[in-house]
């Protein structure tokens, strides 16, 4: 008579049990870490601006506003933003305590959203100054995380590329400004960005739990 054996609480025939044991003997490699420091740093840096909705809407807003202002703001703002952001990042790396960062990051969403919604067209240097001030605070928020990153250089690559791509999203959306309906849609986007900024601003003040 054939005797069954028990594996993992289930009765199995000897042939099947032998096959299972055979498979168990050929174990696959186990990875304690799912990637190299470069890959982990790149991923965490890339996701940092994307997973924070307050950062995300402000970056898209920079591109949208640049497109709304037209040439040369459409390319001046996205080129200067990363450079000024790097200066803010330096403050974060150096461990300088910059107060009200969360509030001002949220305020950037409100301000840029309102400027887009009202289609405000200041001189280029004023637009660059507004965007530059906000870039310092966004850079500071990212820079605070930099020294703790698995690979700081990869982390920097990740968050700068993500920021640039979000600007590009804003610019591409801003191209709809050629059509009347698109122009209204962009202004509506600005209003939406302002509302999201207001939510985060109230949350940073503690008014929203």
């Amino acid at each position: 008579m054939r005797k069954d054996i028990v594996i993992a609480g289930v009765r199995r025939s000897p042939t099947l049990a032998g096959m299972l044991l055979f498979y168990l003997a050929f174990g696959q490699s186990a990875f304690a870490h799912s990637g190299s420091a470069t890959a982990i740093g790149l991923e965490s840096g890339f996701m940092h601006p994307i997973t924070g909705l307050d950062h995300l809407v402000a970056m898209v807003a920079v591109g949208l506003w640049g497109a709304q202002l037209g040439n040369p703001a459409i390319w001046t703002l996205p080129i200067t933003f990363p450079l000024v952001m790097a200066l803010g990042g330096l403050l974060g790396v150096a461990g300088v305590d910059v107060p009200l960062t969360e509030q001002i990051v949220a305020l950037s969403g409100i301000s840029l959203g309102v400027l887009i919604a009202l289609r405000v067209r200041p001189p280029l240097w004023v637009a660059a100054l507004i965007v530059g001030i906000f870039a310092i605070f966004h850079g500071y928020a990212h820079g605070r995380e930099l020294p703790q990153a698995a690979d700081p250089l990869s982390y920097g690559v990740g968050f700068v590329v993500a920021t640039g791509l979000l600007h590009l999203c804003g610019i591409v959306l801003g191209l709809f400004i050629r059509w009347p309906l698109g122009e209204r849609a962009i202004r509506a986007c600005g209003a939406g960005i302002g509302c999201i900024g207001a939510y985060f601003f109230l949350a940073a003040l503690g008014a929203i739990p």
Partner: protein
Amino acid sequence: MRAPGSYMVSALVLLGTPSVAHAHLVNTRLGGFYDGMLHPLTGFEDALPWLALAILAAFQGPQRARWLLVTFPLGLLTGGGLWELVPGLSFVPALSVALIAIVGLAVATAILLPLPITLALGAIVGLVHGYLNAQAMTETTDHLLFILGVTAVGYVTITLTIACAIVFLQGKGNWQAIALRASGSWIAAIGIMALGLQLLAPAI
């Protein structure tokens, strides 16, 4: 008696279990060359300034850019040799990061440089990266093959990237130069922050 079918199944399982077969052992003979070729491609420390240097060369025009195909690989080769002679230069890592910011800023501004400065910049970037890559060599590494591998991959990368950037710049419209300048500003931003980390981290 055990049925022949179970032996057949076991044999099929044994034959069907895949495993990796290595036809060539990369660590023998020319292994050091492949190690040298792959080493600069495993992180952003080399890729970022090489990319920026190639774009900067493309902004200078094909006539000037082609000289970089000589000075940059020669710099890599010399840098590797320099490490053999003076292995402990402590300022080289900071200089390497500073070069990311400098070359990135030059691309962001699309500056037209005099030919000697362009060539000197290419040679310095090559020298620094040849030196830093050579630091990865161990006692068992064939030093000559490793340095030649780094030089070869540097030559191929810079040649292909310059060619791509020149072709890209010659496209219709004026957005190509803006896109490359934007990429330069990204590289400069990364370099500025990395330099800050290099210089300010001990103070934290």
